[in-house]
Structure formats: structure tokens, C-alpha cells
């Protein structure tokens, strides 16, 4: 890990002054590598804060293009970006925020074929995807690769998140087992999502990544935090690893396969 230079010490001074972060914590952030999967509603705030915080290397994976109906919540993208690859649009804005960050772009949807090869290069992964098939695939890949990650999901006025340290804390499949049958749970495009709710949850995920890299505090392991913005109620349900878990339990997985569910067309 390299020392911070003078300009970085000034730039990150409000981090460095925090007792739980300090110079060493900021150096760890600057040496950190985070992969953000999905540059949409969750990925937008996550990416802005990680870039601003000076995370050394940020991977951005998204195979999608910007659509007019994205702009209500996907704050990385502007009217001028409609039709552009979300990854290209994201890198343009984020490079303007912090030119010291190295951005790695994956303009593709992650599958059982390619995900492990990408995940392996990162310290922490953030799930900002919009389908159960992707969320379960990311969980399975991170468990197989033993990579800590943040799960996030949003719907209407609600959000939920858990941070997962494979084989040490409960994984997504410990709680939810498998994707719900197609059509039983509405997607954002069917049910709607308040734009700022994506921001609320994404910012929690970014905070978990920065805590993880810097070593500050305790990650949201063995717990699922959910909130309802209509009543502004937050609740943390405590979890433990599920010995019967299909993915990280005793009979766990040894390889990946894709989940068959149509991607939610946000």
C-alpha cells in the first residue's frame, strides 16, 4: 500500500479526521478494489460515493443502455445519455468526480460463464442488479469465490440489504433459498419504485463497502436491514447461517449455473 500524497491528504481530510478511519483507513480505501454490478438505481449512488471516496479501482458491470424511464432514479445518467451504454455514461461522470480512480468497464450482463473471472479481481462486490436471477447468481459466485459482498433490493417504497461474508455469515440463499416463481413477486417496472428510495439503499451499500475497506465499524453481517419509506421505519432482523442452505450449507455448490428468470425490464 502506498502513502497518500499531499493533495490526497487534503482531498480526503474529512475522512482522515475520523478516528475510525484516519490515514491508514483512507490508504486502505485508496488501495481497495470494488466491483459494482448494475449501474442503475442502486449503482448510481454507490458509484458516486465510491469514486468520491477515492476507492483505488472500481469495476462497473452493466450490459444495458440508458432509457428515458431510467432517469427518474438513475442519477448517473442524463437526457443526453439516452441510448448510450450505461457503463460509458457512468465512467464519464465518475472520472469527472475523481480522476485518480481506475475504472474497469464490463459492458456485458454477468452470467455463470463470465462472473467468476470478473469477481476474482476485487476485494468487495456490490449487487445493484434488478432481477432475482442476477441476485442469486451474484450470491452463488461470491460464495464460491469467497468474496464479501453487499446484497441490495428495492421495491415501491421499500428496500432491504445485507452484507455477506461467505461461510462466515448468512448468505442471501440462507434467507431466501431460491428465486420466487416467475410472476409471483412484482418487478420495479410492474410495481414501481420511488427514485429516492433507490438512493437511500444504495448509499447504505456504499457505506458498507467503505466500512469494509477502511476497517471502520462492523459490517451488516448476519442481519437483514429493511426499511419502509412510507412510515420511515427501519428494522434489522438478526440472522444466522442456515445449515440447510442450498448454496453455503453442508451440501453446498461446487459450480455455477444461471437461474432461469426473465430480467426485469427496468
Amino acid at each position, binding site marked *: 500500500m502506498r502513502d497518500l500524497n499531499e493533495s490526497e491528504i487534503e482531498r480526503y481530510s474529512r475522512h482522515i479526521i475520523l478516528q475510525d478511519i484516519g490515514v491508514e483507513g483512507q490508504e486502505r480505501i485508496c488501495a481497495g478494489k470494488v466491483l459494482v454490478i448494475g449501474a442503475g438505481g442502486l449503482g448510481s449512488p454507490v458509484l458516486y460515493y465510491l469514486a468520491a471516496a477515492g476507492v483505488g479501482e472500481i469495476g462497473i458491470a452493466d450490459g444495458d443502455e440508458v432509457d428515458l424511464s431510467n432517469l427518474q432514479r438513475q442519477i448517473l445518467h442524463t437526457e443526453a445519455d439516452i441510448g448510450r451504454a450505461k457503463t460509458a455514461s457512468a465512467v464519464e461522470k465518475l472520472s469527472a468526480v475523481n480522476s485518480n480512480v481506475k475504472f474497469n468497464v464490463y459492458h456485458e450482463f454477468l452470467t455463470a460463464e463470465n462472473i467468476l473471472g470478473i469477481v476474482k479481481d476485487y476485494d468487495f462486490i456490490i449487487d445493484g442488479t434488478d432481477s432475482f436471477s442476477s441476485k442469486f447468481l451474484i450470491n452463488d459466485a461470491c460464495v464460491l469465490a469467497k468474496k464479501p459482498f453487499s446484497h441490495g433490493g428495492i421495491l415501491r417504497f421499500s428496500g432491504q440489504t445485507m452484507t455477506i461474508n461467505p461461510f462466515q455469515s448468512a448468505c442471501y440463499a440462507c434467507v431466501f433459498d431460491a428465486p420466487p416463481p416467475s410472476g409471483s413477486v412484482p418487478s420495479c417496472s410492474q410495481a414501481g419504485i420511488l427514485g429516492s428510495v433507490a438512493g437511500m439503499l444504495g448509499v447504505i451499500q456504499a457505506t458498507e463497502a467503505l466500512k469494509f475497506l477502511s476497517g471502520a465499524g462492523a459490517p451488516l453481517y448476519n442481519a437483514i436491514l429493511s426499511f419502509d419509506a412510507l412510515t420511515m421505519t427501519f428494522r434489522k432482523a438478526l440472522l*444466522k447461517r442456515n445449515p440447510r442452505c442450498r448454496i453455503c450449507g453442508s451440501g453446498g455448490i461446487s459450480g455455477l449455473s444461471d437461474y432461469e428468470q426473465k430480467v426485469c425490464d427496468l
Partner: protein
Amino acid sequence: MNLLINGEKKTFADGINIAQLLKVEDVESPDMVSVQFNGEFLKRHEYDAAYPKDNDEVNFLYFMGGG
């Protein structure tokens, strides 16, 4: 009997099972939730045979697939 449902204390008739509890609590479809009963996650086929007792804790955790 009293049960702690998602952290909230509620009163129910004695002898109710988890499948019936889902109905009483207006969970439209069991496919939408994962049920945590005193810390353990139940599989869907176990809902009929799971009978909470006074002061037991049940969490309904909803699927949220958006991003």
C-alpha cells in the same frame, strides 16, 4: 397467545399454524416471503406443521428484486 411478528407484539388465536398466520397477516402469496420462525428458516412445505407457541418470534422477509 402473543407472537412477535416482525418485531411487533400481536395476539392470535391459540393453535394457529404458520400457513394460517400468513393468511391472517394478509401475505398475498407465500411465494412472496421467506419465513423465519424462532431464528430458523422454514421451507414452504413445512408451514402447515409449524405451530408457534406463546411469545414465539416470526419474521416475514419479503422478496425485493429491484435495483
